[in-house]
């Protein structure tokens, strides 16, 4: 399919000289969305976001406006922005935090204004030292400019923002674990129900948790209207979205493209985007939406980057990260490395995840190292089935959060798509790729 010439939204200032400073931000239309939002009734801001059908950009893809509408009535309420980007091969929020912090601050204040929050917290992954520095410097500037704090831009609206550093734990990207962490505790996810943040969130109060990229869209949506955003994309997948492309492509990187109008093939091959697979190699498989997502083979490469289309095909667009693996890739090794990641990052609350991830890591490792048995393939599926019964998609779960059912994705994909390769490891007692 041909690429559209839709202009980027959230990355449009990236590349400007010192794009992270207030003066650069103001030179390129910064804080105009917030100024407009301050002239609107909060319900009208939410209405525009509902019209835009902005889907959450963190991974779950829930409608942002609908989430806001579900915020329970008791006050105070809080806004928490999720900048704990840790899904393997996802690196878009990292870029936004470092290069356009004011856009995040503006979006956060618009969100807080719309839902009537008492305070807002921007939770930044602890490892993003430069991102934390730039967000903190931007917050200082935004206060001095009157865009945050008391009587914002002379209005009656006041809000304080806190840049909150994390400390290294993948699970804190899960919204209820993030809230626990923000309360100064271990990052243990809370069970839903009853702990849906919109009902019982931070300090037990109603809380909106939105992703960094999600709120980065808000200034544009308020300025241009929800309908202009909804005019981009197809069906439920509206607007533009950043896709993080990595692996065996010539031009890995973040690309913001119109939703649904671009296929995986375009993203991988177009000279303006991925620029093709390295060394002219053939595509073996790709991961369409982060390490938690089931893999696709070359037969799925013409699918559109569309949330519902990818869901129907048996995987997810998830965090918007696409990992390309060429014909030289050992699929056992790739699947094992992802499995080990989940083992390391399991928080340990639920037995199927805590114990299962360790078993799976051990079995995958011995297959990769040539010490596996043929029965191990059934054993892998048996253990996976204890974590996500039925091994269907979307997965069922036996755990508090979705980290558990994310573990089987790479294993079941690997074994189903490349069974021969697994068997070769077992029979020859070594990895054929060295």
């Amino acid at each position: 399919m041909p690429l559209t010439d839709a202009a980027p939204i959230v990355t449009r200032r990236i590349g400007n000289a010192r794009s992270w400073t207030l003066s650069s931000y103001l030179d390129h239309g910064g804080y105009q969305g917030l100024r407009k939002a301050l002239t609107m009734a909060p319900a009208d801001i939410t209405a525009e976001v509902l019209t835009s059908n902005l889907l959450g950009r963190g991974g779950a893809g829930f409608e942002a406006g609908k989430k806001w509408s579900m915020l329970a009535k008791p006050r105070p309420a809080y806004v928490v922005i999720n900048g704990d980007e840790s899904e393997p091969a996802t690196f878009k929020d990292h870029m936004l935090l470092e290069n356009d912090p004011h856009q995040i601050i503006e979006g956060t204040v618009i969100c807080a204004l719309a839902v009537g929050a008492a305070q807002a917290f921007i939770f930044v992954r602890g490892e993003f030292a430069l991102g934390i520095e730039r967000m903190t410097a931007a917050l200082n500037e935004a206060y001095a400019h009157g865009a945050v704090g008391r009587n914002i831009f002379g209005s009656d609206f006041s809000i304080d923002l806190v840049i909150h550093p994390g400390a290294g734990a993948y699970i804190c990207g899960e919204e209820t674990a993030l809230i626990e962490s923000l309360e100064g505790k271990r990052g243990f996810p809370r069970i839903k129900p009853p702990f849906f943040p919109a009902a019982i969130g931070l300090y037990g109060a109603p809380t909106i948790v939105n992703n960094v990229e999600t709120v980065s869209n808000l200034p544009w949506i308020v300025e241009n209207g929800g309908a202009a955003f909804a005019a981009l994309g197809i069906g439920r997948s509206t607007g533009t979205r950043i896709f993080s492309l990595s692996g065996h492509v010539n031009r890995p990187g973040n690309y913001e493209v119109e939703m649904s109008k671009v296929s995986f093939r375009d993203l991988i091959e177009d000279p303006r985007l991925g620029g093709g697979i390295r060394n002219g190699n053939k595509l073996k498989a790709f991961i369409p939406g982060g390490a938690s997502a089931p893999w696709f083979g070359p037969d799925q490469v013409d699918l559109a980057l569309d949330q519902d289309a990818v869901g129907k095909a048996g995987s997810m667009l998830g965090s918007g990260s696409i990992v390309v693996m060429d014909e030289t890739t050992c699929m056992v090794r790739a699947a094992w490395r992802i499995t080990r990641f989940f083992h390391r990052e399991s928080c340990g609350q639920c037995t199927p995840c805590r114990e299962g991830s360790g078993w799976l890591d051990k079995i995958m490792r011995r297959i990769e190292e040539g010490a596996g048995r043929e029965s191990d393939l059934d054993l892998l599926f048996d253990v996976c089935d204890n974590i996500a019964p039925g091994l269907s998609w979307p997965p069922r779960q036996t755990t508090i959060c979705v980290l558990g059912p994310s573990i089987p994705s790479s294993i079941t994909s690997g074994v189903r798509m490349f069974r021969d390769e697994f068997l070769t490891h077992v029979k020859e007692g070594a990895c054929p790729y060295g």
Partner: protein
Amino acid sequence: MARLNADNEKRARDLIALYPESRSSLIPMLHVAQEQDGWLMPDAIAHVAELLDLTAAEVYGTASFYDMFFTHPVGRHLVSVCTNIACLLNGGFELLEHAEKSLGVSGGGTTHDGEFTLEEVECIALCGEAPCLAVNWRFFGSVTPERFDTLMADLRSGALADEVPPHGTLCRVRRSVGLPAAATPESVTGPEVPSAPGGGRPQSPGTT
């Protein structure tokens, strides 16, 4: 040094004031402690516990959940090499192997001179420039074995001291503004914020 010094105790108290509930400042405060000593010393943990009216065990229990906090000494430079999927596909494991040989340590070990601690790390979100690594959480992409050795030499000589502060220093920018924790917008107090330059007062947003 072990307890927070006077300046850092002030920073800790300022952190407490930012949040509606004091315990929320625990993790930021532990970063301050780790910046002071390079790792979390027992007396610093006890001091943080005192400031938050927690037990040292509660503080330790939280700290030990998080990969960035060390309850044992580490080198001046924490070198974190990524081997997760995007780096694996682009030579991450080979880079880690090179790093182990070059520094003579592995698995979280520290060089004899206390200069480097080497660890294998999960995805650090620089996958467009795989293989990548971080030193004290300052990022370096497209790292070849040759570039790795140059980088270590530059770190050792101090040539990169501006870019890479000592281990534990997360954020060199201090928050200079703000309101104390506000339970409701009505209770917001604090310094008057200058109104926007060159513009009239926008209309009230209505109910807030």
